[in-house]
């Protein structure tokens, strides 16, 4: 296990390195620069500014400087907002985005599995049809459309929940609902189909022949096997939720990282783009690593500590 984690650690570093490099060159390939403004600046001032931010240097020098900043995890000040460093932005925004993301994941996973399992156990009955109709709707409606609908109905018309910002648990309900519905629907459908398959397996029949209580058969014998495919797609879903937070944070005026990320790209604010991208990708890679660990815990046949030929 230690060996596996060690290996994975280096692979994760390599991935981040590649992502950082790609982001850097893509960012510089996009026309425009952070210092371009609507009003024309004096040429000397422009040159001085470029010199100050080292934008006059050849690209490869900038690249090495930038790599150094990643290695030391010090991205320097934002160009648009020189009073703040990128690190400050991350420190302020990340906890909020993290909270939104984690709550969303928990809600999506727990309710998705519950719904899928219920549907499978009541196969071709009312609950099954209702759950799957709900799932199809959940998959089809994009989260930003759902968000506006929720704000319109639950916040503006009925006034049950506050429409925006991130202050109390009540504020969290709508953004989490908007963000969690899609992944929840996907998880529910997947859990249902894999549960239906597992329930026909010989070992379930054998557990029934042993006279084991139905609740234990579902929880102990079936669920764990049925969750394998769900864990497999968790990686993709995590990425989806992460990118979903950008939009949702914007709609609900949540002061998370997504706001800075989107703004920074519009402004070509190089340090902020680099900082947020590297941070986001590092976080996502770490979550994927956790998913792989969970996979190994769920299925004893998957050995993480295998000496040769592992991932």
């Amino acid at each position: 296990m230690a060996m596996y984690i060690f290996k994975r650690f280096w692979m994760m570093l390599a991935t981040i390195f590649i992502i950082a490099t790609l982001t850097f060159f893509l960012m510089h390939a996009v026309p425009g620069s952070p210092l371009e403004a609507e009003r024309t600046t004096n040429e000397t001032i422009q040159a001085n500014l470029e010199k100050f931010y080292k934008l006059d240097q050849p690209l490869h020098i900038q690249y090495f400087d930038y790599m150094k900043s990643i290695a030391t995890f010090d991205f320097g000040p934002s160009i648009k907002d020189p009073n703040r460093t990128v690190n400050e932005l991350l420190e302020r925004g990340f906890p909020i985005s993290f909270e939104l993301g984690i709550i969303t994941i928990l809600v999506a996973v727990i309710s998705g599995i519950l719904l899928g399992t219920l549907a499978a156990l009541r196969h071709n009955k009312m609950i099954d049809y209702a759950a799957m109709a709900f799932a199809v709707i959940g998959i089809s409606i994009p989260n930003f459309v759902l968000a506006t609908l929720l704000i319109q109905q639950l916040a503006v018309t009925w006034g049950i929940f506050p429409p925006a910002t991130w202050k109390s648990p009540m504020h969290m309900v709508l953004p989490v609902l908007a963000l969690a519905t899609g992944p929840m629907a996907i998880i529910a459908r997947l859990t249902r189909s894999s549960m239906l398959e597992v329930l026909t397996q010989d070992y379930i029949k054998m557990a029934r022949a042993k006279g084991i209580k139905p609740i234990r058969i579902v929880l102990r014998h079936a669920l764990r096997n049925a969750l394998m495919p769900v864990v497999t797609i968790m990686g993709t879903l995590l990425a989806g939720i992460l990118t979903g937070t950008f939009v949702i944070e914007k709609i609900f005026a949540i002061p998370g990282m997504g706001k800075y990320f989107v703004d920074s790209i519009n402004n070509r604010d190089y340090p902020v783009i680099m900082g947020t991208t590297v941070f986001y990708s590092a976080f996502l890679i770490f979550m994927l690593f956790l998913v792989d660990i969970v996979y190994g815990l769920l299925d004893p046949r998957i050995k993480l500590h295998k000496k040769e030929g592992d991932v």
Partner: protein
Amino acid sequence: MTGKQLADELSRSRLEDGAEVDPVLHEGKRGKIVSPKKKRTISSEKILEVDDLHVTFSTYGGTVQAVRGVTFDLYKGETLAIVGESGCGKSVTSNAIMGLVEQPPGKISSKGVHFKSRNLAKLSKKEMRKIQGVDISMIFQDPMTALNPTLTIGEQLMEGVKQHKNLSSAEAKKRAIEMLSLVGIPNPDERLKQYPHQFSGGMRQRIVIAIALICEPELLIADEPTTALDVTIQAQILELFEEIQSKTGVSIILITHDLGVVAKIADRIAVMYAGKIIETGNKREIFYTPQHPYTQGLLSSVPRLDLTGGELKPIDGTPPDLFSPPSGCPFAARCPFAMEVCREVYPATTEKSDTHRVDCWLQDSRAQKLIEEGAFAR
């Protein structure tokens, strides 16, 4: 070959082998004849009485009559083999007794399935769970899929006793270790913590047997327990069955299509065809003097090492469609001796001896007269 010739052939080999040895058990290990079976006592007490069991399944294509009136008894300590080709309803019969037929789409009706004077057909699912795994256990065909891949062997062994017998974890563990030793798994203590994929096929079948036996059931239903195993392992598993039966006195219903297996461990045989038991008898009666043309056909389609020359004789044709089974004898269409009446009316049961029963029109006194006149000579 007729049953008569087969019987002669067999009795000849018996004379050569010595009286104590059952000549049917020719599969012997390492070239020698299998040792005579340990003496077991089969009491006259009936443990299971199945009376007129019907099982049907509703499908989109119509209703399949999988089991069409099966009646048999099982005595304490006895091994009854139910033989027949694929799709004849033998597995469905065992699943119905065990309460494993999902209703719907299945539908079970009977005049009673009595297990030690309790009518299993009348029990609720909850009451049935107190019998499943405790009084009646089941062994499944494929040990590669019968064990849950994500639970340790120990947990799968112990959960039954823990639930049914209210044992503590320590007691359950002790019991599990005993069972693993009984079925011949070395280092049971260590092995408990392992997962199914860490065992070979034969070992897994031993574990499945251990799980089935852990609550000390009185009836064991083995549904093709050796079909998925290779031949050397088959012999070991069959020996294990015999050993367990002599130790615990458990009654066994053995579902199989393998007549070699039947010859080795069965006391009594029920031959099933198209959802009905067409002939029952003890082992000698079925192997030496089979009465039903289907049983005769079945026996002469088995390869034998001791009979040189001649080819295997498959039974021509296929079993009838159980969506609309024929009103007469289901074997009539394939039977070389079929008469007009066979296609119209199902034959009554003829008792050839206390144990030997057969459903065939050839047993009718009028047909017997024809046989004497040589009408069926080939």
